[in-house]
Each structure stands twice: as C-alpha cells, then as structure tokens.
C-alpha cells in the first residue's frame, strides 16, 4: 500500500464531507478563475484591439479614466499626423448604446469610424458590404450581436429611437467588436449629438530603432498640442498597453475579480479548516495508535496536510474545469457575450491551482499541528 492510498482511504471514510469540501474549494477556485479569466480577457482583448491594428499610442482627454467620457475635437487628428515619427492617426468615437430588441433593450458598444480607413481592413465581412462614405442610417453588426439580435443583412435595428439598416455582418479578431455595432463616424456624432467630437485617436508610428524613445517623445509632443487660440488641449497620450491597464473599466474588473476571489478563497480555506479540524478530532485515538506504532510527528503532519492537499487538488481540478465551462457558456449569453472572450489563459488556471494549494495549507496546517502534538498517551485515552 502506498502512503497516497492510505490518504485516499481516509478521505473516503466520510464521503459526503469530503465531497462537500471539494465542492467548497471548487467554488472558491472556480470563482477566482472565472472572474480573473474574464477580467484579464477583458484587458487582453482591449490591448489586442489596439495592437492588432499596429496602434502604438492612444490619445484621449486628460484626467478621464473612463474612456467613454473622453471628449476631444476631431480636428486634433490632422495635428497628430504632422508630428515627426507619426505614420498615421485616426479618430474614433465609442459609445454604449441601447438597441431595442422586441419589448426589451440590449446595450452594446457602438464604434464610430471614418469609412475607408484601415480600421475596416480587420473586419471580415460574412455577409453584405462595408460602410461607404455618406451612408446615412446604415450600420455593420458584429457576428455575435447579429446572432443575439437575430438580425441579418437588410434588416433594421432601432437605436435612440431611429431605424438603421444592417448593410453588413462582420467577424473581427476582437470580441468587443464582434459584440458591437460599427457605424460611420459622422453618423454616430449626429446620433449622439456630438458633432465634431471624438473619444480619442489611435496613432501609428513610423518604424524606429529606438521605439520606446520614439513613443516617449511623440507622447510628450502630443500632450503639448494647442488649439487655434493657443490653448493646450488637455490631452493624454499613452502607449496602448499602458493606456488599457489604466482604464477605469479594466481597473474595476481587476479589482472586483481580486476582491471576490479573495473572499471566495477565504471561505474555501475556512471550509477546509473546518473539515480538517473535525476530521482530526474524530481520529484522536487513531492518531494516538499511529504515534504508538512509531509514526513520527512529521508523518502525522504529512498525513493531515496530504489529505487537505488531495481535497484541494480535487477541488482545484473541478473548479478550473467548471470555470472554463462557465466562461464558455457566458460567451454565449446575449447579455454579456460582447464582453467575454470565452477562453481562460493557462496562467489564470495555474493561479487557480495555486489558490487551491494555499487553501489546503491554510486549512490543513493548524489541524496537522494539533494532531502531531498530542501526546500518544493522551490520544489513546480519548473516547
């Protein structure tokens, strides 16, 4: 018999308790992996949306962590293009918009882009055509949103109480764009009553040997740009990755994920502690027998910690698998499928297993210490 076999047999003695503990750890690990997976997917998709298009620098209004509240003059784009080292720049207007869906309303991101800009190059048209300059009341739908709304080319959607005809359905590399609407910039400005205003600019730099130095220099130059009256624009230019990690929504997502994960892990550890203490108290006499037979304290510690590790590993496996399934399922739920990627990175899965092991250590150490330090004679007298 292997020592591991002995531990497993100990755990199968109270099957229901062991299963409930595994479930507790699984919920803790699953919650952590799901939430952190979603928040990091959120961030990486965001970063991807810039990096995939070669965006080096993102320009938004200074002092606005909330990207949707950034408001800049569209004319800045021309000034950006004249800064040495800048290859091109394009404006974008991003809004959250309500789309009427029968008797209910769905929220979706709507991207206002200038037609015929490189942004459209990364959209693969599945049906219909792309937007053309001067198309009024026409939109492209991401494939996820089209599926959610059950719309096809030629159908109409209603936004801000105005009808818009779907002229194309596309698939993007980016989950947010798949769950959103793309519309001509001037049309979105009109719809949202933000004529001549944009959320920000994407800036692509010329290739440079010292890319970091170029980024830093161009960012400084952008932030000193002035309007026609010589007043500074109060704009902020950041490298795209740095910009994303500082965005309010990303910070909120990470913060919520961390806090909820920490609470879940704490509850998991308490559940483990309760299980192991109960298990040890039930076996005081048995532990006394083991000590009488010559088991060292260290082996008793290994037995108790080994049992808590086994429970945690089982909980970790169930939790991670559950998180993967839940995340995939969330990616199909209409209310959130525009924001959830549906995959969980291996790093987050490993973090889940590490959490499970921490839960095992936190929950198993004290009971193991107690069990190892009973005097054999006292343990043998226990009834």
């Amino acid at each position, binding site marked *: 018999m292997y020592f591991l076999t*002995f531990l497993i047999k100990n755990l199968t003695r109270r099957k229901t308790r062991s299963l409930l503990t595994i479930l507790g750890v699984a919920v803790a690990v699953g919650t952590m992996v799901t939430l952190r997976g979603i928040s990091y997917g959120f961030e990486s998709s965001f970063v991807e949306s810039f990096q995939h298009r070669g965006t080096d620098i993102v320009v938004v209004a200074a002092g606005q962590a909330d990207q949707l509240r950034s408001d800049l003059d569209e004319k800045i784009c021309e000034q950006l293009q004249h800064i040495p080292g800048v290859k091109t720049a394009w404006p974008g207007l991003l809004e959250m918009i309500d789309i009427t869906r029968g008797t209910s309303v769905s929220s979706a991101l709507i991207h206002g882009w200038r037609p015929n800009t490189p942004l459209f190059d990364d959209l693969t048209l599945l049906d219909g055509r792309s937007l053309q300059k001067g198309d009024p009341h026409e939109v492209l739908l991401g494939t996820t949103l089209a599926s959610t709304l059950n719309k096809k080319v030629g159908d109409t959607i209603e936004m801000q109480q105005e009808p818009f005809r779907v002229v194309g359905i596309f698939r993007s590399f980016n989950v947010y764009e798949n769950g959103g609407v793309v519309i001509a910039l001037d049309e979105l400005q009109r719809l949202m009553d933000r004529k001549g205003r944009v959320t920000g600019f994407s800036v692509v730099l010329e290739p440079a040997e010292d890319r970091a130095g170029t980024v830093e220099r161009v960012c400084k130059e952008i932030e000193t740009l002035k309007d026609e009256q010589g007043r500074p624009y109060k704009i902020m230019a950041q490298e795209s990755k740095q910009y994303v990690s500082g965005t309010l929504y990303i910070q909120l997502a990470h913060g919520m994920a961390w806090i909820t994960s920490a609470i879940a892990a704490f509850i998991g550890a308490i559940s483990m502690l309760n299980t192991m203490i109960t298990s040890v108290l039930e076996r005081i006499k048995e532990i006394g027998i083991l000590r009488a037979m010559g088991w*060292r304290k260290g082996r008793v510690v290994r037995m108790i910690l080994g049992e808590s590790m086994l429970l945690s590993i089982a909980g970790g496996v169930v939790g991670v698998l559950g998180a993967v399934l839940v995340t995939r399922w969330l990616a199909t739920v209409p209310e959130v499928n525009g924001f959830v990627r549906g995959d969980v990175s291996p790093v987050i899965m490993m973090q889940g297993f590490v959490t499970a092991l921490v839960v095992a250590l936190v929950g198993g150490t004290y009971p193991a210490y107690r069990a190892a330090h009973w005097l054999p004679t006292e343990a043998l007298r226990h009834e």
Partner: protein
Amino acid sequence: MSESEPLLAALRVCKVYPDGKVAALVDLSLEIARGDYVAIMGPSGSGKSTLLNLLGALDEPDRGEIRFEGKPLNAYGNLDEFRSRRIGFVFQSFHLLPTLTALENVQIPMFEGPLRAAQRAQKALELLQTVGLSHRLQHLPSRLSVGERQRVAIARALANDPPLLLADEPTGNLDTRTANDVLDLFAALHRDRGMTLVVVTHSDEVALRAERVVRIRDGRIIEDTRLCTPRTPTHEIPIIAHAQGRGPDLV
C-alpha cells in the same frame, strides 16, 4: 549489551497523574530479561497501564529512568523511531483502521521503515499467514470476528520485527476460546521468535500463561513471582505452522 543486562528496566520510576494529586507509580523498579514473558496484574487504578506506557516509551516518568538494553530511553534520541523499531503494541480494543483491509492495516507501521510498497505488502502477507489469516487478507475489520481482529493487530505489532511486544488487556474483549487462540499465538511468538512479552491483564488465566507474574497495587510492586525459568533467546527465524483459519500449531 551483556547477556546479563536486562532488555528493559524501570529504575525507581515515579509518575503522578495529570491532576498532580495521585501518584500512579511510586519508586517502582522492575527488570525484564530478554526473552522473558511477563504478566503485570493489579486492580483498576493500580498503575499497571501507566507502567506499560512508560515501558513502551509512550510517556516519560516524573522521576526515575527507563532503560532499554542498558541505555536510558532518552539516549535513543527520537522515541517515535525507537517505538517503531523496538516495540510492538497490542491493545484491548484492537484499534484497527476501519477503512483498511487486514493486509493494509498490517502495513501501517512499516511506513516508518525502509521497505517499498511491494515489499510492505509481501511482508504483511507473510505476517498474516503467520497468525493464520491468509484467507482474510482483503477483509475490512468490520467483516472480521473479534478474534481475527486481534490477530490482525498482533500481526501489525510484528510489522517492524520488534524484540519487545507490549499488550494491554489483549484478551479483554475476547471469549474464552478466542482468548486461548490469542494466548497460543503469544506463546508461539515467545518460543519461536524469542520475543520478550509484557502483558497487562486482570485475568489469572492470561497471567498463568506467562513465565513471571508481577502484581502491582497503589503504584508499587507487591509481588513478583517466577512461574518458570525464562527461556534462552534463540534469535532464530520463526517457525509457526498453522492451519488455514485456525490458531497456530507449534512445531
């Protein structure tokens, strides 16, 4: 260790109960020769189990000293390791682990030894054959009779080949016939393996199977009777023949 040196000795040991008021053992001295078979008798509360705990290195005396092969126990360093290699315990209530089969229960003390898993299983098999339980290897304790359980416990006590077997009321939960089987087994171990046996008991029948009877009252030895001459240890490989499902026949 010289031949005349006792295997085990208690030298003027004192032990006070945890409440600090009642002395369990008072200046008690006892020598047990290698290969001896000693029964310790006395009424409840006389201190016999306390003495067994001290002799078995499960507890330490408040005063005095326990010596094994002439060396004080604390000279052996780790007492867990000492117990693992030198002492086998048999308890009144068997204390088998309920989720383990007979074969697995016997392997439990071997985890502290050098044997690999397959070697542990082989040795447990041989020990269970020795105690006549080769047909009950895969049975859980709940599916064994009380006599069979005690024989599994004895096989477990022999797992690390200890020279000393300490038994606390080993027949206390057994009927007369089963108790006799267990005592036959003890006799065989004593004779064929040269094991030193110390048995705590209330029972005159159990005590009469020993070579020496020590009576204790109020923590003191009141009588120490030699029933027969202790045998000379042989250190030979044990030979215990047995029939399947029966107690051992001695050859």
